């Protein structure tokens, strides 16, 4: 795994994009891996009863993917300091979430980088995130 140094990063740098195939398997496996047993993340009938067309990804997983997307870019020595996300269009099975990111600030004093991360599916923005990561 390549590791990024603070001195490598410039304002406006773009992160390599990532496509995440959204499947029922991913939604249920990641809900359980995050210990979230809310039925809307594994039971289609329950999801429909609450007004959704299908099961959908839980927020703990969206959060995990935003973090992973950033540390895939930094390599193993990047340390997340903040992940703040807002969810919009749900991630339903059969969709693809395309993640993109951009450096929006660099802080010399604590060698940290601020990023805007977006995960977009065919319905719109699933997640918009603001992330702070420190680098060696």
């Amino acid at each position, binding site marked *: *795994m390549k590791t990024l140094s603070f001195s490598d990063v410039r304002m406006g740098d773009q992160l390599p994009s990532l496509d995440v195939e959204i499947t029922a398997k991913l939604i249920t496996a990641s809900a359980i891996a995050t210990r979230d*047993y809310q039925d809307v993340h594994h039971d289609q009938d329950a999801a429909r009863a609450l007004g959704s067309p299908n099961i959908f990804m839980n927020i703990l997983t969206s959060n995990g993917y935003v973090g*992973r997307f950033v540390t895939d870019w930094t390599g193993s020595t990047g340390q997340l300091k903040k992940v703040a996300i807002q969810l919009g269009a749900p991630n339903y099975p059969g969709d693809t979430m395309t993640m993109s990111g951009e450096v929006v600030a660099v802080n010399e004093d604590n060698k940290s980088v601020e990023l805007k991360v977006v995960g977009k599916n065919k319905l719109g923005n699933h997640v918009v995130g603001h992330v702070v990561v420190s680098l060696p």
Partner: protein
Amino acid sequence: MTDDESTLQHQIDSFVGAEAGPFLSWDTVNRAMIRHWCEAMGDTNPVYFDPDAAAAVGGKEGGVVAPATMMQAWTMTGYAGQHPPGSDTREGMPVMPVLNDAGYPGVVATNCEQEYFLPICEGDEISVSSIIEAISGLKKTALGAGYFITQLSDFFNQRGEKVGNMRFRVLKYKPAGSTG
């Protein structure tokens, strides 16, 4: 606002400032749960698998570190919806059953803002304490009418060090088209 809505608003507003916790974790921070989480996230960062790599980012005593964004998972109630023995017996979000009874059964998370202060390391015992920061008025949304509830949580390790915090917002709603 109808009289019923006004009464309900007054009732739920009384939960702002309600504190709860600590709630403990069922499991100490461990490599198996970390690996299952990483499998589902497609995360191959070696600091979650390899103690030598973890040592460079705060790993301790030959252990791995946990993904920062896995913080909340440790204190989740799990399949039975119960916190482990030794936890606070109060409801973490006592306004939820009130809104269920008032005809707002749906719940969907909309925001999660986490800050991380210390690495969460293999062997750590994580606990969480929280407070209800805000409850909105009745809002119309694509899913249906409902209330946004914002909870602030602090996460601690077994030494009482704050490892991180979280502002978490959910929409508690009446599904659009339902008659309830």
